[in-house]
């Protein structure tokens, strides 16, 4: 089994590589990268004019299975990932039952083997049943294959429990992924608190609801020496806190989402429930701060927080609608169209944010095109122009605020372990 990716611009930041070359894959592993590799009977993928990158890793998705298969399942979610240019996804534990033991972890890994088209790495919960009361069997979770633990969607409000969880995870050297939201400050909130929440008459979620928890978890990271990764950072204040923590040498990392980088709270004005997301779309100042933090190198990863929902959860009153954006199939296109093509973010940096750093944060043996590495490859077409049409998503969740936009720059091919799983939006397996 040989696959020759011919004539693309190959970018591999781990090896300081950025040149037009051929890339040969043999038996699912990258064999060599150089110009003019002979075809020699290999399957050829003509990548002239395209950009060949290490496979993108989304460290924050909700695959919904088990329990909420009407929103998404492992088959549909991984197809969405493949179509969106991701070769690996890490799935959050807020399933039913919760990923708080080895049985659920094992189930997800088996299902991913059976029906998944990209690599799936489960993330276990911090506390049993995500109730925030007793820490889960973290050793068991790690042994079963969890790459991190997280309270995503149901933050641990009790600082003592968070402290114990951080101390305990030190033994396994995995990060604790913190969804920072003070539930009392955010109670009943529908959107970012500010001028637009006043204008639209929706209860606000103040920036400080996020920041107070970022501050708490930075302090706890300092006190315990453990690794904390901040999920979907959305405010200027959070970034300032994270910058200070970094300067103090603390082991904190963070991610931002494509939607927080490109949309402001103003868009909620049509009461389109697809704009309802948690953390909420923030103010223009916050969006600018996130973009500056990308340029500064403060942000480690871009992650989608892919949160698919069934139609009924979104086709309703704004206050009753579920939070979340089905983002896997637009994330790369949004970043290319809004940040890379306008020249605000260079491609190498984008690859770092979507492949190199996610692998580093979670300790995955991924994120590079080094010969010998698994042939997980994402190929981009920077010039493709397509409209976002949620109805044609592979994801079951059609909830996406970029609908109707024409984006320039799309993932073109997704290769997992040497196999082309998606090409131009179509699933090939």
């Amino acid at each position: 089994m040989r696959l020759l990716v011919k004539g693309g611009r190959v970018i591999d930041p781990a090896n300081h590589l950025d040149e037009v070359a051929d890339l040969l894959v043999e038996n699912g592993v990258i064999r060599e990268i150089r110009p003019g590799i002979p075809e020699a009977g290999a399957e050829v993928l003509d990548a002239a004019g395209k950009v060949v990158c290490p496979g993108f890793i989304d460290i924050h998705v909700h695959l919904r299975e088990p329990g909420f298969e009407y929103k998404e399942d492992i088959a549909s979610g991984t197809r969405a990932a493949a179509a969106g240019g991701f070769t690996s996804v890490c799935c959050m534990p807020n399933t039913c039952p919760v990923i708080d033991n080895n049985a659920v972890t094992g189930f997800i890994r088996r299902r991913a083997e059976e029906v998944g088209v990209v690599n799936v790495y489960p993330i276990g919960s911090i506390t049993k049943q995500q109730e925030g009361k007793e820490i889960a069997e973290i050793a068991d979770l790690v042994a079963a294959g969890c790459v991190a633990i997280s309270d995503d969607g149901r933050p641990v409000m009790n600082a003592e429990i968070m402290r114990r969880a951080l101390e305990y995870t030190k033994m396994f050297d995995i990060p604790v992924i913190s969804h920072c939201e003070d539930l009392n400050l955010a109670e009943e909130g529908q959107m970012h608190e500010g001028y637009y929440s006043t204008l639209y008459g929706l209860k606000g979620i103040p920036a400080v609801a996020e920041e107070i928890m970022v501050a708490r978890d930075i302090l706890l990271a300092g006190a315990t020496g453990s690794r904390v990764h901040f999920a979907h950072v959305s405010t200027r204040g959070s970034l300032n806190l994270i910058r200070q923590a970094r300067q103090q040498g603390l082991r904190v990392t963070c991610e931002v989402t494509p939607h927080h980088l490109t949309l402001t709270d103003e868009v909620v004005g049509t009461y389109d429930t697809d704009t309802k997301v948690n953390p909420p779309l923030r103010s223009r100042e916050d969006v600018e701060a996130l973009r500056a933090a990308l340029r500064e190198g403060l942000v480690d990863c871009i992650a989608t927080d892919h949160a698919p929902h069934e139609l009924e959860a979104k086709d309703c009153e704004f206050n009753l609608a579920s939070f979340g954006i089905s983002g896997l199939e637009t994330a790369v296109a949004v970043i290319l169209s809004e940040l890379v093509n306008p020249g605000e973010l260079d491609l190498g940096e984008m690859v770092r944010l979507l492949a190199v750093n996610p692998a580093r944060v979670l300790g995955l043996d991924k994120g590079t095109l080094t010969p010998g590495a698994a042939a997980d490859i994402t190929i981009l077409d920077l010039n493709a122009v397509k409209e976002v049409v949620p109805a044609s998503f592979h994801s079951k969740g059609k909830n996406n605020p970029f609908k109707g936009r024409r984006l320039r720059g799309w993932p073109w091919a997704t290769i997992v372990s040497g196999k082309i799983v998606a090409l131009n939006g179509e699933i090939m397996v």
Partner: protein
Amino acid sequence: MSFEHHKDLLGLKDLGKEEITTILDVAVPMKDIIKRDIKKVPTLRGKVVVTLFYEPSTRTRTSFELAGKYLSADTVNLAVNTSSVQKGESLRDTIKTIEVMGADMVVIRHSMSGVPHYVSRNTSMRVINAGDGVHEHPTQGLLDMYSIREKKGTLEGLKVAIVGDILHSRVARSNIFGLQKFGCEVRVIGPSTLMPPGVEKLGVKKYFNIEEGLEGVDVINVLRIQRERQKKGLFPTLEEYANLYCLTRERVSRARPDVLVLHPGPMNRGVEISSEVADSVTSIINEQVTNGVAVRMALLYLMMGGSRDEIAG
């Protein structure tokens, strides 16, 4: 006329000065009809208006119902228990049902902001927002503006103070959006915990001190304070609120001598307004109720009285 291209009335923010003027102008002859012996004209014969209230409000609902009846429309009231929204039929299905029964217009009141916008997207019926969450209450805004214009002769350049729970007030928002189009200086007065974030960006002046805020104003619009807000911890007690913000005669005397006091009703005497002030302005507050019917008649005529094809675009 300048209102005929609107399918719906969702808020005053999106209306122009000319459109508001048209509504207020048409409300003048409508008010005459209310004062006649035969309070009925045949204009909207065969039109059906459904009032769909997910929040109790006898006053607003009755006002719409009478406005429809005075114009010979058939009005039907649907009072829905909010809890049934979560359990039972979806709002979308309810709206579709009303539509296929043949209604031409739905007047909706809902505790959640943005619901009229959602309904508007999902029906070909005309939609009037009769109050959505803490967003807008455009017909209350219009009737307040009508009342002010009737008493003052004009809206241009007036100083209007809105006193009370600005944070949770859709009446305040509609008044602010509407009055500003006429060059009014709008002031909001209330405790800091009941001020919406970024309220100054709406172009209003913010006062925590009622005496300062009322200085030299032409109009005072007193908002009703809801007891639930105290339970939510937004102010300590009703007594403390009254000490700080109750509209008393002494406080009224800070305003211009010909000041007009409005209240959307029903009043909490001794809380947001003293009995003394309340009694002295009862007649105007009652007149506001009449004006509410007139303004709603004007809207029904403007939205349903003309050619459907022309307006639907």
